[in-house]
């Protein structure tokens, strides 16, 4: 053959990168005087050893599915959306508006409203950078970073000066009415008689995330819009030749991306906190980058990468709880994963390619 097969590029390269990242993380744990094996054990039992752990792992994974899909779809259009934080922040605002505006008779209706509003708010926050990129050529990476900060300031203002109920000290919105509270996995699985730990935050949003996976897959690989997004992402010039409008595609891709980021807030704001907090996004927008990189921008890959990060998050929380290893270990692992699967990709790919080339030649 002499050429690197597709599966190697799609699976082997990220897997090797991941292993390198984890080995280095293990070294970091050793360096701070802890036992990496022990740490891994705690993480695994804490995150996967009980339905309680799974409840948290899935809760975090839900966030990362949304933000990972958001980054992935932008990647397909050749755009790097690092504004997930800001878009999810605005999505949270959408959820709060949806839940506080009208008295909803049932959670399902409230869910529908918050899905619509969070997506709309997130998309709106992505629209400005998208428009500036499409029409004015402003670098979308920089504008989305700026919009993250602007979103934080905006939410800060709203929570402190507008949405905070009288007499409450912390900057947060009022609690949402109980009717808007989403059923958690304990409740939902209970309907089918399956036991699941009570009090974990994993909730019905998980299924919204799974639907989003399927929807994104269908959009990218089955619709004309997806076809155009992929074409534009591969070659802007060719896209113009084919009559695909760069402005339109940039806008659509970013609007979908922003909407997906915004949807994340349904999980955190409505599914977990039941009120809008100052920083409910907590870096999930950035983790979306790692998830999309690892998942090779494919919804299936994104799903598994999100699970992995959900595991890391919950495992990391358990580590912080039961050992002296600070939770920041997860930040380091996350950094290494992004570094090796995203930026130092070629460090793995090039030698691998050579290996395949050599084995191909040798075989001939």
């Amino acid at each position, binding site marked *: 053959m002499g050429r690197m097969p597709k599966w190697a590029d799609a699976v082997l390269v990220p897997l090797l990168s991941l292993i390198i990242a984890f080995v280095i993380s293990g070294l970091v744990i050793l360096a701070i005087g802890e036992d990496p094996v022990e740490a891994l054990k705690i993480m695994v039992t804490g995150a996967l050893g009980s339905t309680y752990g799974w409840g948290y792992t899935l809760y975090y994974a839900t966030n990362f599915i949304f933000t990972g899909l958001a980054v992935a779809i932008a990647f397909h259009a050749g755009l790097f959306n690092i504004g997930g934080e800001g878009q999810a922040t605005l999505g949270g605002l959408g959820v709060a508006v949806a839940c506080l505006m009208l008295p909803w008779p049932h959670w399902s209706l409230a869910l529908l409203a918050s899905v619509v509003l969070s997506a709309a708010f997130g998309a709106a926050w992505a629209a400005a950078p998208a428009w500036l990129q499409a029409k004015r050529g402003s670098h979308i*990476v920089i504008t989305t970073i*700026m919009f993250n*900060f*602007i979103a934080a300031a905006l939410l800060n203002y709203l929570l402190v000066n507008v949405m905070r109920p009288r007499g409450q000290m912390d900057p947060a919105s009022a609690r949402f009415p109980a009717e808007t509270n989403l059923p958690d996995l304990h409740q939902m699985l209970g309907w089918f008689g399956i036991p699941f730990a009570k009090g974990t935050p994993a909730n019905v949003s998980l299924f919204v995330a799974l639907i989003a996976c399927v929807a994104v897959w269908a959009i990218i690989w089955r619709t004309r819009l997806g076809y155009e997004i992929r074409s534009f992402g591969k070659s802007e010039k060719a896209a113009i030749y084919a009559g695909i409008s760069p402005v339109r595609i940039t806008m659509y891709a970013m609007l979908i991306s922003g909407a997906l980021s915004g949807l994340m807030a349904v999980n955190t704001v409505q599914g977990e906190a039941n009120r809008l907090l100052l920083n409910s996004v907590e870096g999930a927008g950035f983790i979306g980058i790692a998830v999309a990189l690892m998942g090779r921008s494919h919804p299936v890959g994104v799903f598994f990468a999100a699970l992995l990060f959900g595991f890391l998050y919950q495992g990391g929380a358990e580590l912080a709880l039961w050992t*002296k290893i*600070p939770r*920041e270990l997860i930040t*380091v692992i996350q*950094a290494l994963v992004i570094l090796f699967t995203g930026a130092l990709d070629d460090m793995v790919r090039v030698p691998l390619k050579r290996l395949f080339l050599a084995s191909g030649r040798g075989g001939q």
Partner: protein
Amino acid sequence: MDFATIIQILDSTVRLATPLLLACLAGLYSERSGVFDIGLEGKMLIAAFASAAAAAATGSVWLGLLAGIFASLMLAGLHGLASITFRGNQLISGVAINFLASGLTVLLGQKWFGLGGRTPSLEGAARFEPITLPFAGSIAPVPVLGPIYSELISGHSILVYVAIALVPASAWLLYRTRFGLRLRAVGENPAAVDTAGVSVTGIRYAAVAITGILCGLAGAYLSTALAAGFGREMTAGKGFIALAALIFAKWRPWYALAACMLFGLLEAVSIRYQSIDLGFVMIPVQFTQALPYILTVVILAGFIGKAVPPRAGGEPYVKER
């Protein structure tokens, strides 16, 4: 607002603009050479940590400074490795470096000092003290000029003066020297530099190293001059404001000074006034805080003076596909 208050705010502006200026000039070198750097924040953070940690351990702020520069250089080297040698995505590498710094500082800080990521407070020789310029005392009573000299110009730490001196120095280096010519060329068209017999890789690594050193200065200033010790996430987005200032300054040293002073002023004002009453409208502090970012977006949009980044910026130099 009286004269004394204005002097005070400007004095505070100079202090707060200094880390921005150092980081902004740092970014200028890297980006002018065609290597985008959104990891200024991370390099500053790790430098702030390393210098505070070393200063706390040795009691010498100068050793702290060296440690800060060294730590920042390590991350700069990593960025170089990813974006120059392995031709990776420079933006992704920058994101990774920010996370790495944010995690490592707490991890190591907790391991060494057990103070939840903080370093011990620095005192005496472990900190950069303000320098009183000659005659500051005797000129002080002179109206207008006196306060300007003795309070605004005098009385800052050495790094403030270094940062300001770096502006003309950078302008000179960039536009008047061989290194500057090659650096700018490599950011515009690396193939031109390559075929002229100059190593693109060499120039870019040199630029990235300068970025590392300057971010080291910026970080050290934060933890050993502006504050007296390191606290987790103490850069708090300053690296991104510096990046914004760099764009605002259209990648030019003198403009960078102006942009950083403007952003420093905004910070000084937002610290002092929770909201500004303009009579017809109240400006909330959150707006003042977001203003640097808003201004940058406006500039990027090209409605007032378009900012054109170095043409080869963000692209790894690839000869053979």
